[in-house]
């Protein structure tokens, strides 16, 4: 119950802050048609729209979200799945078959990827013919993968050298059984926290990536909402993002989950 209250309070604070940010921003309430030379005199005030209508698109917001949720959902889940699959597999492999040379190569590769700005990665994907949602997913995987790999490797390595694991190994657990029964459960809380962080990062990266790669998803919608000072749309999109971030954070923190 307290959790629900906290969640609601955080969401309300987020919505309020976003609204404040947009309302006080320069250029709030102006429209491009103020420059239209065909118009006489100042623009008449807009027909008042209910709060669940986007000002820029003159459409109910839930409709806009429904239309554009798919590409973003696909790109974010695809990107996260790819990043986690590759990094967890290679992190596990390096605890199973530790090799200094392999580790160093992977480390250098991961570092190089981390040194590339995400925007440039998106641009390079375009050069090599990737388009649309798959390009966003791939860019997300390339941006998140190295970070997830580095941290998850560290977590697993620490867990692998814990006394509990050494004991299990001495008891004669096979390598795969060791990983499944002891290593992963031991590292789970920390991996879960990492998971929450990666979800947050993926969502915040979706805005620039969708904008650069021209994908009609929620990220691009948020960008357009910001450019046109569309207060209801931006507030509701950001409430959605806050919800995902907070829930992911809570799931990571809860010990019983």
């Amino acid at each position, binding site marked *: 119950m307290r959790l629900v209250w906290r969640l609601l309070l955080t969401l309300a604070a987020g919505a309020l802050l976003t609204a404040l940010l947009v309302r006080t921003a320069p250029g709030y309430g102006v429209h*491009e048609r103020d420059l239209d030379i*065909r118009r006489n005199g100042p623009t008449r005030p807009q027909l008042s729209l209910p709060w669940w209508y986007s000002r820029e698109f003159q459409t109910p917001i839930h409709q806009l979200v429904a239309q554009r949720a798919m590409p973003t959902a696909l790109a974010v889940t695809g990107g996260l799945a790819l990043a986690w699959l590759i990094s967890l597999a290679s992190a596990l492999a390096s605890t199973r078959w530790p090799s200094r040379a392999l580790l160093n190569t992977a480390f250098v590769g991961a570092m190089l990827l981390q040194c590339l700005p995400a925007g440039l990665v998106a641009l390079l994907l375009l050069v090599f013919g990737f388009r649309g949602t798959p390009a966003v997913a791939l860019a997300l995987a390339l941006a998140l993968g190295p970070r997830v790999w580095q941290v998850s490797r560290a977590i697993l390595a620490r867990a692998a050298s814990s006394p509990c694991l050494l004991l299990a190994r001495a008891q004669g657990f096979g390598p795969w059984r060791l990983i499944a029964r002891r290593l992963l459960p031991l590292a789970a809380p920390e991996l879960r926290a990492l998971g929450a962080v990666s979800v947050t990062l993926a969502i915040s990266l979706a805005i620039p990536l969708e904008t*650069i790669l021209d994908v009609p998803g929620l990220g691009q919608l948020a960008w357009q909402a910001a450019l046109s000072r569309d207060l209801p749309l931006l507030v509701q999109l950001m409430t959605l993002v806050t919800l995902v971030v907070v829930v992911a954070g809570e799931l990571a923190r809860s010990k019983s989950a």
Partner: protein
Amino acid sequence: MSHLVGLLAILLFAPPPAPQRGGELRLAVQAEPRSADPHIAADEPSELLAYLTHGVLVRINRLTQQSDAELAQSWKSSPDGKSIVFSLRPTVKFSDGAAVTSADVCYSLARILEPKLDAPNGDSLRGVAGAVRCAPEKNRVTIIFEKPLASAERWFDGIAILPASGKEKIGAGPFQIREWQPGAFITLERNPHYWQRDAAGAALPYLDGVRLDVQRNRDLELMRFEKGEFHLINNLDPDSYDRLRAKGGNSAISLGASLDTEQMWFNQSPAAPIPDSKKGWFRTTSFRQAVSLAIRREDLARVVYRGHATPAAGPVSPANRLWVNTSLKAPTANPQQALALLRREGFTFSAGVLKDPQGRPIEFSIITNAGNKSRERMAAMIQQDLAAIGIQLRFAPLDFPSLIERITRTFDYDACLLSGVFSDLDPNGAMNVWLSSAATHQWNPNQKSPATPWEAEIDKLMQSQALAMDPAVRKRAFDRVQAIVAEQAPFIYLIYRNSMVAVSPRLRGVQPAPVRPQVLWNVPRLYLQN
């Protein structure tokens, strides 16, 4: 040799191959159309969509710039310009098969003039013609204006005819909307009831459909054009034009100057919250003339636009053949003359710094919209040009809403660099730029009475040309307006961008015009060759 002559004879006299029917024309729009309602269309994609899906009584031929009969087969204006009679084509139908009647015309006119709809073209017509009445008869419509309206039929290029039944998504244009995927694409299919036929009597359009892909990134648009995913690009930027040219082939076409101007202006609004010293400079004609003289327009055209622009002389580009004042010449940069002008006003120039008569160094900032590469580069070049006469220019690119707020509401800026976009060739379409009382009289809008004698003269000339019926009289008045603006430099015109398009070799029947919608203005007659 005789072979060659024979070949030439065949090429010249053989009948042109019959246009191929079918196929989908694909192109990009830079943003999603804001509305499918043709009457409130104000952004370029919406206007394009309206052009493709709706019919009008009269079409301005984008090549000849004369009026072509469209849904109306003929028209006649009264000598006093207070009324016009259109006779409608008897066989024209909407896309649902219903006939286009005079009632539909009157309904559409009343709708677009309804202040609550807030339609830009309606607003503009109301401003010039006052109250408008419409009398429908069978296949004939008489429209009566409160004030005389010169070339009245041209206004009807911007008034789409909608069915009086109020049914949505019905039009009398060559295409109708089939599918609209928000944020992604719009597909159009041919209107089976479209009225126009080609010379052989075959139904138009030749194309089965059009697909408009929402593609914001111009580089991606070019890439997809090169791969054959798009058949045309309507506004090619100079870099892309050069790239296509360098690759060989002749898909990139330059159509000469476009209607659009790039200009800067100083804030002369008395309400501006800027120091009085600055207001003083900006209101001094010689100061504005000196700045204009210091800018190397030919460098802007050559460097920023890679030669695909023309130094500007005045408000009307040579693309507007009927109205341009050809006696105006673009000023050639002359810093010495600029300094001489300033010295005459008491300014001093020493050690590379220009100071006003009170000894204050001349510094000001210029705003423009962020993200426009050409405009940011122009600002950087103007900065260097003005430094040569001792002026320190600061550059502040702003995002568009912030910019609009400053130039239309708070007036908190020194100077602004922006383009002038004209959708109408006729000076009446730009009434709200020149009248000192208008809101888009950018340098000093909403004046109660003209602030300067020359603005008063412009007001008088604009009003007199609007009331005159004789084209020669109107031209003389508007020529004088252009000359005053060029001399007083409230807007410092920099360049006219060239209109450049790219057309796939598969697309035939193309007669591109420098006026919107460039390649697509004769869309019923375009076809794709395999």
